[in-house]
């Protein structure tokens, strides 16, 4: 696993803010805006974490998550799912599909940074070794 993060998010301004935050924390961030292109990007980059929006064009976040869990090489890959739809049924569906963590919008910057460290490095105090 590398020190990169794949961010699948079709809201360009949210994607830009998250990318800025994570890059300052030392992560390489690749933004994918179309659900249909997400699987290819994940398989190509072998990231440490995937941040996945639930509602996407092309393919929903749940569909992508299901595909990730169905492949041997990505079955255990940490996936942080973001959504503005915080209803219980969405969370339950994501948990059934094997999401690592579920975060509703709006989120704080510290929350998402901590979640990325926690999921990708195994602890809130861990630091990626990449360049800032």
């Amino acid at each position, binding site marked *: 696993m590398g020190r990169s993060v794949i961010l699948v998010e079709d809201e360009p*301004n949210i994607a830009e*803010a998250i990318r800025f935050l994570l890059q300052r924390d030392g992560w390489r961030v690749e933004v994918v805006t179309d659900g249909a292109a997400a699987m290819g990007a994940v398989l190509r980059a072998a990231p440490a974490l995937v941040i996945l929006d639930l509602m996407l064009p092309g393919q929903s976040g749940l569909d992508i998550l299901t595909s990730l869990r169905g492949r041997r090489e990505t079955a255990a890959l940490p996936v942080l799912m973001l959504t503005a739809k915080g*209803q219980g049924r969405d969370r339950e569906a994501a948990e059934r599909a094997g999401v690592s963590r579920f975060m509703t919008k709006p989120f704080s*910057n510290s929350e998402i940074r901590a979640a990325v460290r926690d999921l990708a490095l195994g602890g809130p105090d861990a630091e990626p070794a990449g360049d800032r």
Partner: protein
Amino acid sequence: MTGGKANPSPSLTGAALRARRLALGLKQAEVAAAAGISASYLNLIEHDRRRLAGGALARLALVLDLDPAELHPEPEGLLAEDLRAAAAHAGTLAVGAGDLDRAEDFAARFPGWASVLIGLYRRAEGLERAVEALNDRMTHDPHLSAAVHEVLSAVASVRSTAAILAETEDIDPEWQARFHRNLDQDSARLAEGARALVAWLDSGDQYGAQGMISPLEEVEGWLAARDWQADAPEEGPVDGRSGRPTGGLAGGEDETAGLSTAARVLARTMAARAAADAAALPDPAFGAALTRAGGDPLAVAMAFGAPVLSVFRRIATRPGSGAGLVVCDASGSFTFRKPAEGFALPRFGAGCPLWPLYTVLGRPMQPVAAVVQTAGRGARRFRILAFCEPHYPGGFAGPELREAAMLILAEDPGAPVAGPVLPVGPTCRICPRTGCAARREPSILTEPA
């Protein structure tokens, strides 16, 4: 609108896309599946809450038999008038109590944006509380769900971006400029999303049996897709006096296919009226008379012996006409709305009480003309001609029914103003005007006293 490509336009709005889909008799799920996107995503597109791009754009154009060039978004459309209104009033807002240190820091460095953001945050918090209380309703309403999704997405972006600007002391100027631009875009989206959400929450019991939109909205979408030409459906006999269809709705495919039953009844009523108007005011004589009368509908009505409201409808629905028209019954409820660019109309009843539409409702057969100016920094002037006609379908036995209408004509912004100008808004709930004597409830765009 059958066969071939639709007429080109700079870009189609979500409402026009929806109308196009309905005109083709296609369901959201069918179009979404054919275009390779989810039905919920198509729903967002149809409500101008997502922009089309890439392959999805091309596929949707193919499914709807449109030129892809018509579907390209207009970025400037994001800069809604509500953002300007919110920004104009943000200076009166108090600083919130939470997160004071960061707020002070942010306000010191970006005082203008801080004020705007504080106001928008507070509104979003109120909306979120309302959304929680309406959760059950929301889970059954895809349109409301889409509006909430839009607000939350914009709030998420604003919150994250504002915190970055406030907390990152060594931010690169290029990133700083980019984030300022993003804040501008997102606060515009937030203002627009909040307005859409409030309009929907205000809908009360307007949910029809289909649980989606009102029959009037369906018909308006259908008419907009036909350039407001309603004279095609001829299925079944029509009552000559009321203009209402007397026959059943059963029958073969007609141009109202795809509309709900209630909307089809409305569409046929409007079609019958349009046909009667065209018969009473035939072209080219009507156009010539209108020119001779200097555009005065009353003079044209007298020349033809036709109702003034028929003349209003003919003016507003002539092909390519930019005139808007609003018609209401004695309760003030809208029965017809054709928007005029720049003149915001509320989705349901209860427009601005200062509209001449309501003035004439209490003065039947007395014409009222006024120059009005809309609210906000994007304010525009319009010439309004209003008239109310009483009807007595039961003769002396009553009741008296009233129908009021106002024709909305854009004024040349460079033209001198000859007389008084009446300041108006769309409806109190989303009107930013302060000190309005006619206000009946606080606005979400102004700080309550």
